């Protein structure tokens, strides 16, 4: 029956390879190559988040203290540079913007981003941050090809610059985006910056990822040794079964 093993392995392979529907809907997403294994990138991403996002968006499941531990920052660094809300070090990252005002200003309360990457995928968030364009027909003047008529004004415009849309002839569909006014970063630098931000949000959606990679290697090594010993023991006992 060993001939069935490849079939089983293949089935699992197909299942893993097939993207779930939630991600499949955003076809043509850019690839973020997100990873939580680069501490410097996580620190840069945190810096961007607290400078450009934290005014409106919370990370209500992430504590400042946990973040400091995981990102290799000191309490002083976090409290002096990142936490501007007056929250205590042990408290979670909650934006100081009142929900009622936010709803009045933007039409909806800016969502908590603790689980944004878990819910939408890193590639979606990355693409979203790269596909804002000027659109005078919307109330806020910005639009986004990844999330049509997004309520969010583009907070990173001074970094990326201003993109405008080239429409497909005779339609209202966007064919491509063009950088018409450069920002303070080059396109390559901007992509790296948004990658840092996405890496940080990937970390925020599952801080345990840092630990499980670390422990996983040792657990599997232990289990491999255990299985090997169990195999030899079984072989010894089964010597006389023919």
């Amino acid at each position, binding site marked *: *029956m*060993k001939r*069935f*093993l490849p079939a*089983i392995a293949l*089935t699992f392979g197909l*299942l*893993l390879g*097939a*993207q*779930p*529907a*939630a*991600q*499949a*809907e955003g076809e043509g997403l850019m690839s973020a190559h997100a990873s939580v294994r680069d501490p410097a990138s996580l620190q840069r991403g945190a810096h961007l988040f607290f400078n450009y996002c934290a005014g409106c968006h919370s990370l209500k*499941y*992430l*504590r400042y203290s*946990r973040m400091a531990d995981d990102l290799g920052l000191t309490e002083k660094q976090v409290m002096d540079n990142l936490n501007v809300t007056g929250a205590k070090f042990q408290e979670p990252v909650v934006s100081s913007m009142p929900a009622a005002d936010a709803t009045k200003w933007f039409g909806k309360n800016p969502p908590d981003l*603790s*689980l944004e990457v*878990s*819910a*939408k*995928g890193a590639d979606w968030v990355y693409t979203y941050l790269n596909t804002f364009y000027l659109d005078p027909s919307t109330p806020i003047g910005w639009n986004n090809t990844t999330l049509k008529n997004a309520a969010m004004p583009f907070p990173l415009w001074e970094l990326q610059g201003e993109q405008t849309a080239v429409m497909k002839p005779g339609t209202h569909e966007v064919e491509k985006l063009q950088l018409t006014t450069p920002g303070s970063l080059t396109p390559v630098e901007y992509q790296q910056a948004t990658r840092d931000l996405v890496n940080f949000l990937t970390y925020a*959606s*599952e*801080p*345990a990822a840092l*630990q*499980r*990679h670390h*422990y*996983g*290697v040792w*657990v*599997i090594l232990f*289990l*491999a040794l*255990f*299985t090997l010993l*169990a*195999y030899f*023991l*079984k072989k010894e*006992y*089964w010597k*006389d*079964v*023919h």
Partner: protein
Amino acid sequence: MSKFSAWIGERAPGLDATYRKHMTEYYAPKNFNLWYYFGSLALLVLINQIVTGIFLTMNYNPSAAGAFDSVQYIMRDVQWGWLIRYMHTTGASLFFVVVFLHMFRGLLYGSYQKPRELVWLLGMLIFLTLMAEAFMGYVLPWGNMSFWGAKVIVSLFGTVPVVGNDLVEWIMGDFLPADATLNRFFALHVVALPIVLLLLVVLHLAALHEVGSNNPDGVDVKHGPKGNRWSPTAPVDGIPFHPYYTLKDLVGVGVFLIVAAFIIFFAPTFGGWFLEHDNSIPANNLLTPAQIKPVWYFTAFYAIVRMVPSAFGTAFWGVLGMFGSIALLFALPWIDGGKVRSIRYRGTGYKVGLMVFVLSFFCLMALGMDLTDEYFPRIFGSGIDLTTWDNVFGRFWTLVYFGYFVFLWLYTHLGWEKTKPVPERVTMHD
């Protein structure tokens, strides 16, 4: 015997006898192959689910207001909470993997045939209970997929004629999945159904040990020649379950744990199949997910619900079809009138039939997972009418699924099956 075990033996005389009956003097055929690992693995996963479940229960808050937050609390603030939760979620999916393989083993070697009908029936009851247990557990994190999954699955009962709507309200305790629903599902998931599962597992094993294990040759070792190294009355091809199969299963456990550990530590969401993306959004009755579909292990049965058309003004037929697809498995010992057990000696018709049956299960699974919506346009061009294609594809494989049981009855009861001679004693292949 040590003083201690003598002391126990005087006060609980049946204990030692029970241990011997089920472990050291339970003679299992010596020719078990790869397919025989999955029973003990299912038991291992059951224990994992109970132990990790107890620790999750210590920190989980079974209320609509607190459930979602408490899961994140477990993931972030509880010491090792992330590991406990991933062991539980991975265990849930792997439970179905090993149970599906365990059931397929039964089909391969005719383990449900006389005299093991009761073993099979109890096993099917375990499967049914497991489905209820998994469904209710899936609702507990109170993510958006939990909410909509609960709504869709419970509303299946709404198709029952006359009492349908009342039934749905009775099950949910509200007009939508709500706090009352979550509370009762929690009670059922952590208390009622686990007790039922444990009881059924004990009965499943007791029934098995009464008639003895089948094997890849389908040879009845109990009725073959007698006398082995351990006992003159034991089957000649039987070996003591302990230590032989406990040690062999230990190797299986090791390999299985490596696979499980890989998922737990490196791919706990398994690409969105074990933990779905939409469940990272809190339950929201105003926000319908783009696609509502059950977790992978229910998708084949869910596809049947979708594919059976409405008739006479009711969609009840789909629900009947889904329950029918499981009920037919219960009836398998009586549908299959085969003269031999193992696929090694059965007719070509059985071999082909079983493979087509498994294929129908996989195709229905793919449909239930919406993989067809993704791959049909890629294969056949984006201009195709997906609904029609899905319906033709799904209804064809639904017919094949049910057709298999009709075929099997005709094939075996009308004497069309040409079997090969079964050897007197078990053979050692691999």
